[in-house]
């Protein structure tokens, strides 16, 4: 026995020549190893720089194009309210019938008259189609205006707006230069863009309608997908027996996470609209549809996070006499929460940018007022961007870019919140 064990070793020692650790072959081998390492690092760095460059290009081009979308050119208008008052008193504009009284006034004509009076014939074209809305809100704010002349800044027409921002034709440019020299025209940050909804006139459009629609839709998605996804993952990880059924469920969930979103749109259309007869274009339906889409992503992320909780913690809690549900809610879930939140935010971010399924359930409609509730017609930011990018009028180009900026800011805020929450939970545990 001992002889056999010794002999092969002896043979090898005789057969092998000493390894030349300092030989040229070895040096070349070492040099090659260093070279391949350097190549790998260079390629990796190139990839990072490339993706960073794309991101920077996207952000910078959006900012340049979109910054103008937040501004609006306004024209100074001296309005002679008493000329159309016809006996309407300031008191009538304050009373319970205020809205009807204002509606009865011909503010559109008043606006064009004021423009003609101030800037000559044909000057009504200088005004935005929605200029009279500004007069209406001015009257609402201060009913006593009806008894006197007042100076009000109203939005200028698209052509003037474009010319003022350096993109118009020569004729309008001249008008703008003249008006600016007189101090009757200025371009400033537009609150309209943040407070109003869609419109056919680019000078009157706002992002608030789509933004609120997105908020409501995301709220439904989060409220549904997060608890259901987390609980499903908990059940599958902690309670479900391992058998053919759970294997099938696991495969199905993985497949669902990869299903194109438009299919979920069709599903939402068939189930929520056609079967349950829920309101078309409503945030609740959009939220439900997006929740269906987000849930598999959350389930997968949550299962991985739950799997990563060390078994020793589970054993420790069980051995203390914690019931399975106490183990889950006191130990496993808090430890898995950072991972679950990360998965949820990834899923939500995908849902936030989703357009196709929402178009199918009717959220691409022209919605000119912000949704008041979950069942009111609404649209969302990406769909709004899609709709505006399809418009012919030049004024919509910058509005589209501005809307993209709003969407990106929303997205980044969401991600920042997720990172904050994750770090917060990780510190505590």
């Amino acid at each position: 026995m001992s002889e056999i064990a010794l002999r092969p070793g002896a043979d090898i020692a005789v057969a092998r020549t000493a390894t030349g650790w300092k030989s040229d072959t070895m040096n070349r081998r070492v040099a090659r190893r260093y070279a391949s390492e350097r190549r790998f690092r260079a390629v990796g760095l190139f990839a990072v720089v490339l993706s960073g460059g794309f991101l920077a290009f996207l952000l910078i081009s959006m900012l340049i194009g979109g910054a103008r979308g937040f501004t609006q050119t306004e024209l100074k208008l001296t309005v002679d309210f008493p000329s159309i008052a016809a006996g309407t008193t300031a008191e009538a504009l304050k009373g319970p019938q205020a809205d009807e009284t204002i509606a009865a006034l011909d503010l559109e004509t008043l606006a064009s008259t004021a423009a003609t009076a101030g800037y000559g014939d044909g000057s009504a074209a200088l005004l935005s189609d929605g200029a009279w809305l500004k007069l209406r809100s001015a009257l609402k704010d201060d009913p006593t205006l009806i008894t006197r002349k007042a100076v009000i800044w109203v939005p200028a027409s698209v052509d003037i707006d474009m010319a003022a921002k350096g993109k118009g034709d020569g004729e309008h440019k001249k008008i703008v230069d003249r008006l600016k020299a007189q101090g009757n025209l200025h371009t400033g940050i537009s609150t309209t863009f943040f407070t109003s909804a869609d419109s056919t006139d680019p000078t009157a459009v706002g992002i608030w309608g789509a933004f609120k629609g997105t908020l409501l839709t995301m709220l439904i998605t989060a409220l549904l997908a997060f608890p259901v996804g987390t609980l499903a993952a908990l059940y599958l990880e902690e309670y479900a027996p391992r058998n053919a059924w759970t294997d099938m469920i696991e495969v199905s969930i993985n497949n669902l996470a990869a299903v194109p979103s438009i299919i979920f749109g069709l599903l939402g259309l068939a189930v929520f609209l056609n079967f349950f007869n829920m309101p078309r274009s409503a945030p609740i339906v959009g939220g439900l549809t997006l929740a269906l889409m987000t849930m598999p992503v959350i389930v997968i992320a949550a299962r991985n996070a739950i799997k990563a909780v060390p078994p020793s913690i589970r054993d420790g809690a069980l051995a203390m006499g914690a019931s399975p549900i106490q183990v889950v809610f006191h130990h496993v879930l808090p430890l898995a929460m950072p991972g679950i939140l990360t998965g949820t935010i990834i899923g939500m971010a995908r849902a936030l940018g989703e357009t196709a399924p929402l178009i199918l359930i009717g959220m691409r409609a022209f919605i000119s007022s912000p949704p008041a509730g979950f069942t009111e017609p609404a649209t969302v930011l990406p769909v709004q961007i899609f709709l505006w990018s399809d418009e012919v009028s030049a004024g919509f180009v910058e509005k589209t870019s501005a809307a993209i900026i709003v969407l990106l800011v929303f997205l980044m805020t969401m991600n920042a919140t997720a990172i904050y929450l994750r770090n917060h939970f990780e510190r505590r545990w």
Partner: protein
Amino acid sequence: MIKASQKMKARDVNVFYGEKQAIRNVSIDVDTDNVTAFIGPSGCGKSTFLRTLNRMNDTVAGCRVEGSIELDGEDIYSSGMDVVLLRARVGMVFQKPNPFPKSIYENISYGPRIHGLAENKAAMDHIVETSLQRAGLWNEVKDRLNESGTALSGGQQQRLCIARAIAVDPEVILMDEPCSALDPIATAKIEELITELRGRFAIVIVTHNMQQAARVSQRTAFFHLGELVEYGATGDIFTNPTQPRTQDYITGRYG
């Protein structure tokens, strides 16, 4: 061999993992006055058997237990036995210290809290203090009860785990190689602690270290290949074993 104060009584216990039999016909008694040590080579089933005593093996898929194990005359595998209360009465300390990633205070108070053992904050403070004192950890951690339990050293963590088990006021404490991840000084402290806790709790300790078994236990059970080869007073097992297999193991012929 069997004393009147016996706490747990196992009779003809067989444990299977699927088709594989891990424990064969083991009968053993555990009492409060003595520390019982389970020794034996790796894979002999001593840890498996320990885990049947508080049904921690329930969590292992495909694990099946036959025979009877009684705690104060009550079969712990009967349908009337509540496994949550069983584990509160039969506490466990693991091989690797596994404090919860919470504060030291919360680590100790967790068990009493879920079992409703403290009426108010003062009672809970009392439980936390006495448990840490009994585990010999109080003086080291009394000023930092709000720090994380995972920030302690390995030996302190293990004593925290023992304090955590004591806090529930169990009747039996099972220790699964509690010192195998610790250095000699920390090990000595744990052994000292085991000696102090003897008489108050029935203690069963699984160990690879025969010197440790000789130092801390009064009764020793030698397991081999899933069988209980010999069980008796620790002195007898180490100096005068009746079975040749025990003799071989004690003298280092295998294991």
